[in-house]
């Protein structure tokens, strides 16, 4: 018997013109892992919120059909009753905590169930081990990083011994390493406990090999398919699946390990010139090109409370160039961008830009506060406002994450000839990422210099024509993506891991 069933569920938010969900029917069997895909704004969060009754109990609106979760009808049972059966992990790492420290937080759900003290103690110890957060147990929530918070949130959900775990894009606000840590926890729960899991996640390549069914949402309509069928059909999918479809490999490999067998038959990739080759005129920080430099950074240094964030860094940026700035968290990427933008004053050295620089921070939401999109765009030229004509009357913070990102860039960086973007693809779905990539390429073609701090290797390989790797406040590699990203263990694309050499993207491999 299925653990969760949805029967003809349709839902419309209060005052919304179009329904968010249309006649959704599906079932989750015990022990299954379900991946929920869909563009931002397609109704993923809404669907997941149906599973524990937050829709419609906390949102209102017009709800039809029936959701049975663990034998309870969500129309007659409130979310707080379903809380004992369905563990829910929200998207924002900081929005779901109630108390101040980790242990109290882990116990909170159990306290609500009225469990006895000794039982709570036992379960707290167990989830701490299961999720691997013993080192965090005495910490305050506000001292935790985003990834640590999400792991605590998972442990807190797990402590009430739910029958199913529902995760709403738990990694979309995290950097790749933190996201990897969180996903590993989820995978371990699946492998060791056989935890029934429904997860919305953009990192399809990471979890595709583990899922039983893929649910794809498109404008509120749900397709429930086997992983191979769903990935072959389209939507967000791993690069190896793209390659497999072009090369006609069957069955379609879902991960790198499956793909290795097929990759034996591929032609050998051309050896890519190492960055030091004379052809690239390679010199760290100075990427020579035909176009003039618009920004020169010389011997730049910046410390926070004595801790160096950027040290003795020299760099020149050229018109028409899209530069990806990569490196682990805390390597100084954001500081460097802020120094170039003039938001921070260098403590030593200079950062000189000949054109207006614009910086778009990680959290684009923070930039949008007007009542309508039209108000946000007030004072901008008609060309800038043109792409947004369809949404002029809408409330900016109700736009999907991708739309908000686009609007924020337009508002901040409309006229700028030097664009500095901090993690612009975080939380974006593949289609929006593609659009963003095209938009940036177009701006570069118009002569803008663009620097993007990003962790997103696949997107950088597709978008950038120069990659800088940064560590400890210094740039340690500089060159075209083909050489920098192919010659790397950490910053390699999935295709480059599979075939090696200078091929980074599935469409570069001749089959």
């Amino acid at each position, binding site marked *: 018997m299925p653990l969760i069933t949805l029967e003809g569920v349709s839902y419309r938010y209060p005052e919304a013109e179009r329904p968010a969900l249309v006649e959704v029917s599906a079932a989750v069997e015990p022990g299954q892992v379900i991946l929920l895909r869909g563009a931002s704004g397609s109704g993923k969060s809404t669907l997941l919120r149906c599973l524990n009754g937050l829709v419609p109990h906390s949102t209102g609106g017009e709800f039809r059909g029936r959701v049975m979760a663990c034998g309870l009808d969500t129309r007659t049972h409130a979310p707080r009753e379903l809380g004992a059966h369905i563990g829910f992990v929200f998207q924002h790492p900081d929005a779901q905590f*109630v108390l101040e*420290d980790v242990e109290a937080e882990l116990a909170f759900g159990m*306290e*609500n169930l009225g469990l*006895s003290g000794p039982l709570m103690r036992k379960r707290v110890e167990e989830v701490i081990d299961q999720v691997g957060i013993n080192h965090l147990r005495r910490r305050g929530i506000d001292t935790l990083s985003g990834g640590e918070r999400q792991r605590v949130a998972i442990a807190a959900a797990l402590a009430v011994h739910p029958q199913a775990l529902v995760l709403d894009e738990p990694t979309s606000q995290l950097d790749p390493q933190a996201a990897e840590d969180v996903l590993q926890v989820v995978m371990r729960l699946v492998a060791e406990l056989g935890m029934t899991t429904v997860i919305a996640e953009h990192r399809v390549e990471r979890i595709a090999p583990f899922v039983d069914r893929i649910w794809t949402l498109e404008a509120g309509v749900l397709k429930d398919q086997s992983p191979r069928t769903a990935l072959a059909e389209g939507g967000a999918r791993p690069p190896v699946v793209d390659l497999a479809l072009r090369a006609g490999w069957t069955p379609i490999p879902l991960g790198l390990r499956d793909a290795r067998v097929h990759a034996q038959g591929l032609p050998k990739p051309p050896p890519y010139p190492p960055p030091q080759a004379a052809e690239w005129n390679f010199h760290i920080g100075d990427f020579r090109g035909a176009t003039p430099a618009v920004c020169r950074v010389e011997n730049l240094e910046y410390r926070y409370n004595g801790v160096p964030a950027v040290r003795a860094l020299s760099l020149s940026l050229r018109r028409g160039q899209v530069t990806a700035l990569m490196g682990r968290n805390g390597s100084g990427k954001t500081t460097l961008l802020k120094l170039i933008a003039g938001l921070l004053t260098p403590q030593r050295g200079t950062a000189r830009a000949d054109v207006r620089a614009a*910086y778009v*921070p990680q959290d684009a939401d*923070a930039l949008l*506060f007007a009542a309508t999109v039209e108000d946000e765009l007030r004072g901008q030229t008609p060309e800038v406002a043109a792409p947004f004509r369809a949404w002029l009357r809408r409330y900016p*913070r109700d736009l999907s994450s991708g739309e908000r990102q686009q609007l924020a860039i337009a508002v901040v960086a409309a006229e700028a000839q030097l664009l500095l973007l901090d993690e612009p693809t975080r939380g974006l779905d593949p289609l929006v990422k593609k659009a963003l990539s095209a938009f940036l390429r177009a701006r570069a073609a118009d002569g803008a210099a663009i620097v993007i701090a990003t962790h997103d290797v696949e997107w950088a390989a597709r978008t950038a024509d120069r990659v800088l790797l940064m560590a400890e406040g210094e740039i340690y590699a500089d060159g075209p993506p083909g050489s920098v990203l192919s010659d790397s263990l950490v910053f390699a694309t999935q295709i480059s891991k599979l075939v090696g050499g200078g091929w980074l993207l599935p469409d570069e491999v001749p089959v």
Partner: protein
Amino acid sequence: MTRHPLAWCGWATAALATAFIERNPFLQVLLLLIVINVFIAFRRGHRVHNWKIGLALAVVPIIFSVALSRFGTHVLFTLPAIPIIGGAWTLDAAVFGASTGAALLLTVAIFAVVQTTVRSADLVAALPRPFYRAGTTVALALAFAPKTVASLQSIREARQLRGQRAGWRSAPQLLLPLLLTTLERALQYGESLDARGFGSRRRSRYRPLPWTIADLAVIGTAVMALAGIVLTPAQTYNPYLGLTPSAPTVNSLLAILLLATPAISASLSRMDHATHHA
């Protein structure tokens, strides 16, 4: 060691009452030393973040008072007839400002102690059952305060990025975004509370805090101190009437000394540990 949040609430109530009522400089200094001692005994690695605010609160009244007040007989110097600040600057006014400043500084210091010793979660758990839901709401509101400050900072930064001014005049424009983000966050909180089963049935308590002898001593002495301060007539000190403060009475001196109980209990328990180790 004192652990119980209600004991701390009792202590803080008595200390605050003293800080508001007593204006005798000797007693103010004594109370400040005691509060600092208690803070040091319990800070558990907490750094003092808002000492600058405390210091500003202490200094600003002095400046205002001395610059604006023209009363008093001990003239320091006389400025020519400039509007507002012109005239005779007096020592009496400066001392009056210092006295007010000291009271404000004491208030900040007492709250700093409460902040480091009491976790709002413990406080909520210690409340009697009928107050539980109200208490949780208050705890949530408290948890919101630092986040609201953080979002205010990000909004100001965002306005700077968009080339808007970030001065005092922009305050009204900051208010709406701040309200929006706070409301959005409140909604998410509500959803999280709901999804985690809050209020579905009678709650149980993880690690309830028992009352220890130290807790009882702290709350007992706090009650005695409060009684001592409230019942004996306050030692009003007005520098305009006489710069030299009178000697404090034994009653108020004793009452204030009683407020050192948490620090004493902490050092006693530390000595206890030391003998156990030896």
